[in-house]
């Protein structure tokens, strides 16, 4: 059976079993990763996964079933089971559920890829990581690590409303990190970010990172951090590098604007959101420099696709415009509950997982400054970059981040290196304090966004650039 045949059989079986709507995703994914440590390949993993997941709406209750085979009988059985599960959901019923309208679409889409990452010789990929980690070890790192990951996913989507969409999305990326072990603590430096940089691209992304060129520097920095002065504690002006700001956006904007959280659907696990739909369009989220878009159309960014996993086409929308909250990440059912007219941000982590609201590319539009200008304009502050730890409350308000490295900024100049830099704050207060934003935007990829039960790992993108925030509490420690 083809992917479309299996998905169609599952959808029809769900309808025959009483569903008023059904959709199915067949997904085939090849995954490859390699890690190296101190000049040796540590692990090579290659995985191939193929299966079908079908979702059925019976009355106003959902059911989902997934199977690892594509025979006609397995697909039909999955459809029937999905409907049966939906019927069981009705034992604890909720309000009526509808789906915002979506044009039935027949389409095919593929992400751009110059160099097939699975076509690059394993020996070449291994040599890259072995060489970079050996260099880091030779320059003082106690633990020198390198990693790349590749996902090559083809999916076939069919809905009972007439959607028939196939997509092939290739994603890859990688990075290196150096850890130095001191007396009772460790210091880590990574390039280009912790876990690396990722995108919906081919191997050309990894090549462009030029990992070997940065290996010696980060190893030496990790060792130097062991004896660097501690980041001072107190309130000061904070300059964040683009990589750290990307995670700040992810945690304190991206998750907060997920409509399922706002509606309480994630209350027991991922949490809710401080945002109140009644204030959509009027709430002051941040300073006027803050323009955040939801944009799955950015070529090469990790959160890009042609269609989401409900068949909605990729569309660019505003989330925050000149500091005002104006948009959410939504699916067809959550949008209907909220009285909105679009979904478009629903994805499933493989065939065995339920599609749910996920970030696509959520990021800041470029500002008018450069990092050099921001530093030059800062009389007394701290510059921090590259994330080391992240924590935020279940309403996405109270956060504390740690970075790998900091620098003192005095009278417009970057000064001495600081170790254990941390900062903490409350989301909207923090964003309202942003008074300078660079134009040096990079679409950072986050390949490890956890959400859902059973757990799903999402791939998201976050255009971000260095920025300055006023009067931020820094230097929190045990």
């Amino acid at each position: 059976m083809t992917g479309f045949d299996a998905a169609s059989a599952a959808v029809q079986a769900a309808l025959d079993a009483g569903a008023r709507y059904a959709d199915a995703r067949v997904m085939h994914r090849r995954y490859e990763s390699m890690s190296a440590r101190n000049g040796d390949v540590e692990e090579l993993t290659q995985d191939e996964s193929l299966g079908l997941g079908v979702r059925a709406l019976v009355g106003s209750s959902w059911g989902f079933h997934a199977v690892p085979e594509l025979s006609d009988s397995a697909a039909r059985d999955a459809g029937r089971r999905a409907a049966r599960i939906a019927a069981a959901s009705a034992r604890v019923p909720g309000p009526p559920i509808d789906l915002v309208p979506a044009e039935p679409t027949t389409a095919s889409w593929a992400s751009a890829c110059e160099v097939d990452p699975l076509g690059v010789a394993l020996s070449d990929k291994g040599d890259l990581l072995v060489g970079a980690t050996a260099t880091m070890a030779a320059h003082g790192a106690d633990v020198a690590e390198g990693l790349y990951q590749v996902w090559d996913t083809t999916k076939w989507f069919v809905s009972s409303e007439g959607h028939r969409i196939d997509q092939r999305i290739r994603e890859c990326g990688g990075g290196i990190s150096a850890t130095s072990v001191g007396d009772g603590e460790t210091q880590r430096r990574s390039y280009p970010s912790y876990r690396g940089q990722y995108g919906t691209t081919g191997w050309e992304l990894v090549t462009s990172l030029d990992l070997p060129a940065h290996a010696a520097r980060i190893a030496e920095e990790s060792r130097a951090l062991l004896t660097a002065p501690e980041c001072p504690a107190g309130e000061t002006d904070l300059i964040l590098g683009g990589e750290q700001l990307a995670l700040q956006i992810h945690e304190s904007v991206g998750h907060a604007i997920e409509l399922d959280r706002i509606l309480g659907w994630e209350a027991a696990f991922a949490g809710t959101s401080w945002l109140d739909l009644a204030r959509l369009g009027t709430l002051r989220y941040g300073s006027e420099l803050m323009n955040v878009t939801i944009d799955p159309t950015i070529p090469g960014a990790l959160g890009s696709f042609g269609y989401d996993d409900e068949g909605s086409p990729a569309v660019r929308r505003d989330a925050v415009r000149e500091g005002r909250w104006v948009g959410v990440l939504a699916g067809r059912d959550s949008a209907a509950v909220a009285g909105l007219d679009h979904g478009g941000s629903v994805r499933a982590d493989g065939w065995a997982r339920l599609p749910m609201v996920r970030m696509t590319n959520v990021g800041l539009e470029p500002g008018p400054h450069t990092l050099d200008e921001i530093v030059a304009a800062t009389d007394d502050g701290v510059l921090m970059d590259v994330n080391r730890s992240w924590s935020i409350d279940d309403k996405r308000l109270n956060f504390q981040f740690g970075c790998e490295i900091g620098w003192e900024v005095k009278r417009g100049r970057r000064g001495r290196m600081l170790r254990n830099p941390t900062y903490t704050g409350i989301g909207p207060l923090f964003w309202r304090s942003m008074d300078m934003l660079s134009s040096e935007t990079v679409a950072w990829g986050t390949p490890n966004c956890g959400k859902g039960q059973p757990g799903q790992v999402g791939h998201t993108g976050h255009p971000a650039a260095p920025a300055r925030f006023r009067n931020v509490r820094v230097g929190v420690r045990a």
Partner: protein
Amino acid sequence: MNELDLAARVVELVRKLAGPAAEAEVVVTRSDLALTRFANSFIHQNVAESGVGVRLRLHAGGRTATGSGSVATPDGLTALVERAVAAARLCPPDRAWPGLAPPSPVPSAPAWDEATAFAEPGERAERVRAFVAATGGLEAAGYCRTAYRVAAFANSAGHSAHGGSAEAALDGIARAGGADGVARLCADRLADLDGAALGARAAAKARAAADPVELPPGRYEVVLEPAAVADLLHNFALWGFNGKRYAERQSFAEPGVAQFDPAVTLVDDPLAASGLPFDDEGTARRALTLVDAGTTVAVAHDRRSGAEAGAASTGHASPGAATFGPMPTNLHLSGPDGPPATGGGTAETPLGPVVDGETAALVAGVERGLLVSDLWYTRVLDSKSLVITGLTRNGVWLVEGGVPVRAVRDLRFTESYPRALGPGAVLGVGRRPVRQPDRFDGVWWDAPALRLAAWNFTGGASG
């Protein structure tokens, strides 16, 4: 073809395609995972998944590669072996290859419960219904999960093993005016999960958490309830008793050193509940004492980290362990022996902030401190000192004179977990651990309530 036959077939394919000298180990797993999720007091997501996984680790010509897949057809298995053989040829030499597990007996695992393994969606929905009903009109959210897996291991050294496990979990909150209360339990049998009892506990805590006040940050004596203690166990396992991190000197663990209070004994005990009796290298899983009356005595190893440390595998191999390290996944924390405390939810001590006698006994000894139900979004600032930041969640109360006197808004903390449980820091350990589910079935934390001398709160709800 059963799992053992499939595993043997893959070993045979390796011999055929890579030659008789190739070493191979294979794990075949079939699983059923079902999870019924509720929010706003109705079931909004309800899923079930049947899965099959074949994992091959191959060592040939001094090089190692791993392959896995969900395609268990003859063609799929052949393709899996061909990919691994091709990959191994192109990989750099593996100088630390630890060899295969030799044939050896594997202990029998606890029997698994068929009714749990093959539970119908209606049975999970009934527990959810009971939980929601018991909240007495509060908003409820959470999940009921059943999971079943049967797995077989075979390697080219002639070792094989087979086993199965089943597990159920119910985890929910009740919400009252912006305050949440939680109840969470993991069991071998779905029949042992009482939705009504758990819903009533969550509701009582939620009602008691209403109208919280904000307290200034600082060091407070605390009583951590089992859900919060589970987070400590999880982080100890991941970062501390991880044999690879220990070898890299990134762990705090120092075997032979009294790093914890004498009241602390930590055992990884995978077969204390339904579980597979062998790891991904075929090594038998057994109870492993990590901390004995305050003294660190061991860390977890697979064959690779064990060989590097000059130690034997402790049965902790898992997918990805070569990169992330072998770690305990079934920790049991116990204190000094003694009869469990009683009370909590009785006529004398009705449900409220405290829902069990163990916690009540610990709270009674606190002159001024905080009762903490749960911890949330904990992340490591430094792995060696295991300094972690995170937040309280699902209920915090100020305790004065041994009594919770009022609800407190959530607090942020930044604390070294080993320091918080260090010598002299543990003022009491509940005698009845409560098995807490993890995000992954098969992983659980058997956690009692803990009374600690100090916990470092570094921020309030408003910053």
